[in-house]
């Protein structure tokens, strides 16, 4: 018999709107939205300007969340996830607010960093399924329009090239228009000026001479309307040519004098024009869809078609590329580190997510070279800390940055580290374990010449045997090996042994 479908609620505590979607996840690929509740609430204004929420706002927030909880209960949902985005994130007293919400409503709200949020938005697009893989084969930009900012993610040949945050959110633009005191008749031309200026920078820095074919739109304002149009039967719903979109915009959206719709469609129009995209796809998804998709995949309720980890790794590679890191060395290190990680699972007990951190750290381990050859660790750390890596939370990025740093510098122990950063115990241990592996991998490539194309790693008694298969001279590696692997011994209490298998 078929399993009874699971009911899941996704809550998005957005800057200008609270929304909740209820999903029915039947397993396989079947899942559908069965309810969508939205309530306008302006958390953004108070959060961005004062950093705290007023009593009344807090009351309203809790009141609505209590109602959401009631609706969830009435559906008897099996599980839920609730996330706060930028307005919650930018509060000075986030913890206090979240605790109050927990005691007053019984809801646990987690805070998403911008990169996590955008990653979920991106997942929501992929979750729309139909056509995503085909669309991103050609040059494509995902335009994710939020209240405070927009996120542009550039794809080429189904690989994520870069993702950038630009402060052109709908409400930010609206506020700016209000400040200027723009007349309705001037709105459009003013918007164009405000938007195009920043978009052209993005184009110059990141798109360069790539040909952009499609724009994928994620927003709360027009895409849900757009997604109902189907230009040709062979196209997915919401896949429109620029002409059709501009016609629709003129006929429909511009008449609707609600500002958000106009601003959002103007953003889409400008992006298409600046990047020269001929087509647009509005799958009509929101953050809630990403939350549900992520939940369903993580809980193995549905299987993901798209490899999202590959996107994160690709993103890291592009960062490395920007700082002129050697692609070959990065790839070799990544491979070595992963071999060691996989062989020592019993020792470190870490999972898939940590494996990803290691990959990214390996890719980015010397990006600081771009700035200074003597302070590679410190500079790499700062670059990582200040570069958005889609799909990583702030805390996760911090771990990666530390791993990168300690790959070059002396390891700082917990007491000292905890004094200067927000690293907790668990994170600290992950950093230590992954640093040890990365250092060992680097030891195998001291010459930076990728002498070992094939390393077999195995755990035998108290030794980690690294069998390298090469005819090259590995004097340098061998010589430096012992000193470089001390930290590994310290962390795992296992002795790495390098064995060379020569081909005769």
């Amino acid at each position, binding site marked *: 018999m*078929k399993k*009874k*479908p699971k*009911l899941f609620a996704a809550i998005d505590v957005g800057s200008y*709107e609270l929304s909740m979607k209820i999903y*029915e996840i*039947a397993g396989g690929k079947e899942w559908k939205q*069965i*309810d*969508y*509740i*939205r*309530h*306008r609430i302006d958390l953004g204004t108070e959060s961005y300007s004062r950093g705290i929420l007023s009593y009344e706002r807090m009351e309203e927030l809790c009141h609505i969340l209590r*109602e959401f909880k*009631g*609706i969830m*209960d*009435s*559906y*008897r949902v099996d599980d839920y996830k609730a996330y706060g985005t930028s307005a919650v994130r930018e509060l000075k007293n986030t913890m206090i607010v979240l605790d109050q919400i927990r005691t007053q409503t019984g809801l646990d709200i987690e805070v998403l960093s911008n990169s996590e949020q955008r990653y979920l938005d991106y997942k929501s697009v992929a979750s729309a399924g139909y056509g995503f893989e085909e669309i991103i084969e050609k040059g494509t930009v995902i335009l994710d329009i939020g209240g405070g900012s927009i996120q542009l993610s550039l794809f080429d040949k189904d690989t994520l090239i870069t993702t950038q945050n630009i402060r052109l959110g709908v409400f930010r633009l609206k506020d700016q228009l209000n400040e200027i005191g723009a007349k309705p008749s001037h709105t459009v031309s003013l918007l164009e000026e405000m938007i195009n200026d920043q978009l052209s920078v993005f184009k110059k820095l990141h798109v360069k001479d790539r040909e952009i074919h499609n724009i994928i739109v994620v927003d709360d304002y027009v895409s*849900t*309307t757009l997604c*109902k149009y189907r230009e040709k039967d062979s196209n997915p719903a919401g896949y429109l040519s620029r002409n059709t979109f501009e016609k629709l915009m003129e006929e429909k959206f511009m008449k609707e004098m609600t500002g958000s719709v106009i601003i959002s469609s103007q953003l889409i129009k400008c992006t298409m024009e600046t990047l020269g995209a001929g087509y647009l796809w509005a799958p009509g998804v929101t953050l809630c869809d990403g939350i549900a998709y992520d939940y369903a995949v993580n809980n193995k309720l549905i299987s993901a078609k798209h490899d999202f980890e590959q996107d994160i790794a690709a993103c890291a590679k592009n960062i490395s590329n920007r700082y002129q890191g050697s692609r070959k060395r990065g790839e070799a290190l990544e491979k070595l580190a992963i071999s060691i990680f996989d062989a020592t699972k019993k020792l470190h007990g870490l999972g898939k997510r940590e494996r990803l951190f290691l990959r990214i750290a390996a890719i980015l381990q010397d990006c600081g070279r771009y700035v200074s050859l003597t302070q590679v660790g410190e500079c790499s750390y700062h670059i990582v800390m200040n570069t958005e890596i889609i799909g990583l939370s702030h805390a996760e990025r911090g771990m990666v940055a530390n791993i990168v740093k300690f790959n070059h510098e002396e390891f700082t122990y917990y007491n000292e580290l905890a004094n200067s950063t927000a690293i907790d115990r668990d994170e600290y241990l992950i950093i230590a374990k992954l640093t040890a592996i990365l250092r060992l991998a680097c030891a195998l490539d001291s010459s930076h010449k990728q002498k070992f194309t094939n390393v077999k790693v195995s755990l035998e008694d108290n030794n980690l045997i690294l069998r390298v298969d090469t005819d090259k001279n590995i004097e340098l590696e061998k010589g430096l090996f012992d000193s470089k692997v001390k930290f590994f011994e310290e962390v795992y209490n296992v002795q790495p042994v390098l064995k060379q298998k020569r081909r005769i």
Partner: protein
Amino acid sequence: MAANKTTKVGLNLRNPDYYLNRELSWLSFDERILGEAKDKTIPLFERLKFLSIVSSNLDEFYMVRVASLKDMVDAGYTKKDIAGMTPKQQLAAISVRTHELVASQYSTYNRTLIPALTEVGLTVVRSHEELTEKEGAFVDEYFEENIYPVLTPMAVDSSRPFPLIRNKSLNIGALVKRKGDKKTETEFATVQVPGVLNRVVPIPCESGKKIIFLEEVIERNISKLFLNYDIICASPFRIMRNADLSIDEDEAEDLLKEIEKQVKRRQWGKAIRLEVQDSIPKKLLKILTEELQIEDEDIFKIDGTVDLTVFMKVYGLEGFEEHKNGKFNPIPVSDINPEEDIFASIRKKDILMHHPYESFEPVVNFIKEAAKDEDVLAIKQTLYRVSGNSPIIAALAEAAENGKQVSVLVELKARFDEENNIVWARKLEKAGCHVIYGLVGLKTHSKITLVVRREEDGIRRYVHLATGNYNDATAKLYTDLGLFTCNEAIGEDATAVFNMLSGYSEPEGWNKLSLAPLWMKDKFLALIKRETEYAVNGEEGRIIAKMNSLCDQDIIMALYEASNAGVKIDLIVRGICCLKVGIPGLSENITVHSIVGNFLEHSRIYYFRNGGNEEYYLSSADWMPRNLERRVEILFPVEAPDLTARLWHILDCELKDNLKAYFLMPDGTYSKIDRRGKVIFGSQDAFCEEAKEKFKASVKDVKNTRVFVPETKPSEG
């Protein structure tokens, strides 16, 4: 204001000459009802009922429409209506027409109905002076035992102010003089005819039945109420007050309490009509006129019994069955299998119900079963007018007690049902339902119920949408249509409707439903325009629309344009119709039918030919500005071919009706068709017959299946 639109031949569509005033059109409707009271082919007691409805309709008309026009005049508002009349002009015209209507009503009453009643054995003693001595003694005893204890006589003198005369109550006014004091002035005294007692007092008699009205008995005994006074004269009177509630919803902190307060205040509204017997002494009338500050044109001098709504009670008297229409029993809905739960029947197919020919029971059962069903998660419903002791309310309360999430929107602003609805709202809240008292600035008139069920293969939503109220009592008297469906697209929309009613944002798109006041009107205008375009392109354009009232100017203009383009338009409008038919170059292709039958026509059906891809819609909304702009209404499509065939049949029969249908004439009057040489056809009768046949057939089916089929030896051939 939109620019003036003109037709091909240059007619200005906004020309007031092309419209009828809505109040006068409404009075035409009341005149049509009176026409039924006059119709000799109708059983006598049914005619009494129509006579009574004329009165109750007029009461409401005064309390609401006349009151609001008077408010406009008082506020110095002079804007003209679509027929080009100022409020003052409208009031003047109304006064003339209502006086004529009432005169005609009483002439029917006195000259035709009373003698006819006597003929069939019911004697109505219209004045206590006509009682025999024996009968007099009987009623006097009745007075002392039953009436006297509940009376509150009030005299007016310098120390006691003029008392509050309650809205719509019947009273007896008297001029009295203190006994033994020849010098003093006469004083005014009054007593309310108690509403708690039956106004119809039967008098024993040898053959047939005899009745007298309560006020006559009181008048006869009035001296017993004012023992220290001599009664100079006494006469019944009745007043009507301004009953329009004015509530500042933004200011009102607790709408429930505010409405309660206002309902009480309704008793104090300005008097706007005074009904007295024409025999009332001048002096008594003068006192009433002065104290109540009533204008001459608002005084109705009546030849006979004041307040004929009492004949609804007379109708209820036992016996005289041969003078009443046989009671029609609604038949069970054939698509609902009583052997299984109602949800299973709905899963099989969409179910259309035509009340009162078909039973309203399934709607009540729908809620009842949902309340008990283990898989039901939530029940959501809008309630506008519910019956006394409503089984639906009881079922909702039970559901909440069973742990279902029950959300109910109780429209507290439903006129004249406010008090009633407050009681229900409280009861539901107590049971644990989530009660919404309507929306600020809007009346929620839509009729929708959503039941969310968690089934084996996931969430399934069952929706009931209807043209009429969730009122099991009126469902036996009003013709309405209801649809059960578990169509996913409609289910999604229904969820969105309730989210909106709970104060959440509107979804960006709707699948099937159109909502007023958001964009139902645009939808209607677009549908009408589409037919116009078909006609312009040489194709057939066709609109049939059935509703209670038509007075929205934008819609009428669109209909004029459509007619002008060659669209054939048949309208079945029971009540107000501001559109004019037969204006050359404007509305030659439009007909307006008005069916006034035994059942109150209440369903709203909208048909558009759409170049052959016919579309049928049902709605809670009329084509009135208040429906389209100030109320929450739902328009829903009916798509299943077997159901649209039924809707077509209903419209077709109603257009064929030549028994109960009146036709709007180019001069704005209504008249029945000349039936000579024609087959007489009444749509309501036809629907009743069809229902009976259908029921018989279904019973036969069951019997047939129970015939044993014996196995026999195959015949050798």
